[in-house]
C-alpha cells in the first residue's frame, strides 16, 4: 500500500518535471537566441549557451528608428480598442444583468457567436471597404476591429459582475431620490471597478497579440503593430533575422506578464465569459 503511494508520487514528480522542461525549453531558447550574434545562431552543432553573449539585438530592436512608431501603435491601438469596447458594452451589460426582457438570452447568444467568427472570413471585404473609404493602414480601422472582436467577451463578463451585486443596494439608493444613472455611477461602478479594470486589461492583452487583421490591413509605421514586425523579420532583405525575432518576442512578453500579474484573480473569469469564477 505504502509502496504504491511512493510510485504514484514518483510518476507525478516525473510528469511535472517533464512538463516544466517542455514549457521552459522554447522560452529558454528564445532568450539564448536573443543573446547570440548572427554567426553563432547559424552554427552546427547549435550552442546551448552563447559563447560571446551580445546585447546587439536588445539594443537595435529597441532603438531601431522604424520600430519606434510600431511600439506606440501597439499600445495606442490596444488601449483605444479596449476603451471603445467599454463604452459600447457597459450599458448593454447593465441592461442584460438588471432587466429580463423578451429575447434577452437570444441576443446575448448571438453576441457570443460573434466572438467565434474567424477574422479570415471577414478580412477580404474589410480590406475592400477600407480601400474605398481610405481607412487602409490607419489606426482607427484596427481599433474598431479589435473593439468588435472583444466586445462579446466584455459584455458577458461584466454582466456576470453586475449580477453579483444585490439589486437592493441600487434600489435603496434610488429610493433616496436619485436617478438610475446616478445609482449606476455611484453604487454599481465602484463595486465592479476591480473587475472592470481587469477585463479592460485582458482586452488590451488580447489585442496586443492579434496578428491576422494587423498583418493584412496595415503596412506602414502609421498603424503596424509588434506581431507584424515580428513576422516581417522573416522575410526582409537580410533574410531570417532570428536574433531580432527572439528579442522582440521577449520585449512583448513584458507588458503581458505585467498585465497577467495585475489581473490574475480575474483572468479565468474573463477568459470564460464569466462562467468559471
Amino acid at each position, binding site marked *: 500500500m505504502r509502496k504504491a503511494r511512493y510510485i504514484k508520487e514518483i510518476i507525478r514528480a516525473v510528469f511535472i518535471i517533464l512538463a516544466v522542461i517542455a514549457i521552459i525549453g522554447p522560452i529558454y531558447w528564445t532568450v539564448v537566441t536573443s543573446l547570440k550574434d548572427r554567426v553563432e545562431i547559424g552554427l552546427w552543432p547549435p550552442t546551448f549557451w552563447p559563447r560571446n553573449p551580445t546585447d546587439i539585438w536588445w539594443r537595435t530592436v529597441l532603438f531601431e528608428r522604424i520600430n519606434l512608431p510600431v511600439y506606440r501603435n501597439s499600445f495606442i491601438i490596444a488601449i483605444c480598442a479596449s476603451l471603445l469596447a467599454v463604452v459600447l458594452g457597459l450599458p448593454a451589460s447593465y441592461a442584460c444583468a438588471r432587466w429580463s426582457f423578451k429575447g434577452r438570452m437570444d441576443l446575448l447568444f448571438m453576441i457570443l457567436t460573434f466572438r467565434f467568427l474567424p477574422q479570415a472570413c471577414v478580412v477580404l471585404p474589410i480590406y475592400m471597404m477600407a480601400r474605398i473609404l481610405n481607412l487602409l493602414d490607419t489606426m482607427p480601422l484596427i481599433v474598431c476591429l479589435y473593439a468588435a472582436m472583444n466586445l462579446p467577451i466584455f459584455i458577458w463578463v461584466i454582466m456576470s459582475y453586475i449580477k453579483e451585486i444585490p439589486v437592493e443596494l441600487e434600489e435603496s439608493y434610488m429610493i433616496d431620490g436619485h436617478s438610475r444613472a446616478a445609482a449606476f455611477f455611484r453604487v454599481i461602478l465602484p463595486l465592479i471597478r476591480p473587475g472592470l479594470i481587469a477585463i479592460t486589461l485582458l482586452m488590451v492583452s488580447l489585442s496586443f497579440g492579434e496578428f*491576422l487583421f494587423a*498583418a493584412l490591413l496595415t503596412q506602414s509605421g502609421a498603424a503596424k503593430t509588434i506581431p507584424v514586425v515580428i513576422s516581417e523579420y522573416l522575410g526582409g532583405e537580410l533574410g531570417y533575422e532570428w536574433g531580432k525575432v527572439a528579442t522582440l518576442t521577449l520585449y512583448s512578453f513584458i507588458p503581458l506578464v505585467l498585465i497577467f500579474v495585475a489581473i490574475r484573480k480575474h483572468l479565468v473569469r474573463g477568459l470564460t465569459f464569466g462562467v468559471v469564477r
Partner: protein
Amino acid sequence: MRPQYYLIPPLIFLFFWFIFPFLYDIYMSSMSYGLYSSAPPQFVGAANYIRLFQSADFWMAFGRTMAYVGICLTLELLLGLVLALILSKEGKIISVIRLVIALPILMVPVGISVVWKVMAMPSYGILEYITQLMGHRIAWLGHPIWTNILIIVTEVWQWAAFVFLILLAGIVSLPKEPYEAAKIDRLSDWTVFTKITLPMLKPVIIIVCLIRALDLLKFFDPVYALTRGGVSTETLSYYIYRTGFKTLNMGWGGTVSTVYWVLCWLLANAVVRRFRGVFE
C-alpha cells in the same frame, strides 16, 4: 427607456464589422473578380460555388482544419487536465510551477511560432540536433508529417496552458465535502476522479472545450509563421489569405469566406445553444 435599446449600439457595431462584410463576401462570391485586374468584375452566379465544392485545395484545407481542431483539442484537454489535477494541491513549490506552466499564454502567438521555426530550421535548428542525437535526423520543415506534427506541437504548447489555467480554477473551487467523504470510504484515486471530480467539473470542461474548439477553427498564426501554407499545412484561414492577398482572386476568396463564415456561424450557434445551460 426600454432595456433592449441599450443593446442597439453594440449590435450595430458588431453587425457592421461582421454581418456587413459577410454580405460583401456573398456579393464577391457571385463575381469573377480579380483585384487590380484590368477586366471589370463580372457576374457569374453560383459558378464559384460549384467550382469550390469540386476544388481539391478547398477540401484539403477544410479537412486539415478539422483535423487540427480534433487533434489539438484532444491533446490540450488531456495535458491541461492531467496538469491541473496533479497541481491542484496547495503549496509554495506548486504555485511556482503553476506560474511556469501558465507562461506560454503570455507569449505573442506569432512570436513564439517563429521561435519554434528557428528551433526547427534545417542545418542549425536545435530540434534537428536533438533528433540527431537520438539517432534519426528529422527535417522538421521539409516533410508533411513532421511539419504537421511541429505545427500541432506549437499550438498545443501555447494553448494547453490555457486549458490548464481554467481547469485548475475549476478544480480549486470544487466543494471539499465529497472528497472528505471519499477519504472515509477509502475510495481509490481513480474512483474519486471518475465519480466525484469529473462530474462536478463537467461544466468547466464543457466551456473550455467549446472555447478551444471554436478558436482552433481560426487556425492561422503558426501556419503563417512556420510554413506560409507550404508542406501540406494550409488551413481554411490561410487559404483565404492566399487567394485574397497572393493570387488576388477576390471572387474566389469571397466564395471561400462565405462558406467558412456560414460554417463557423452554424457551428458556434449549435454548440453554444446545445450547452446553454452552462452559461445561465
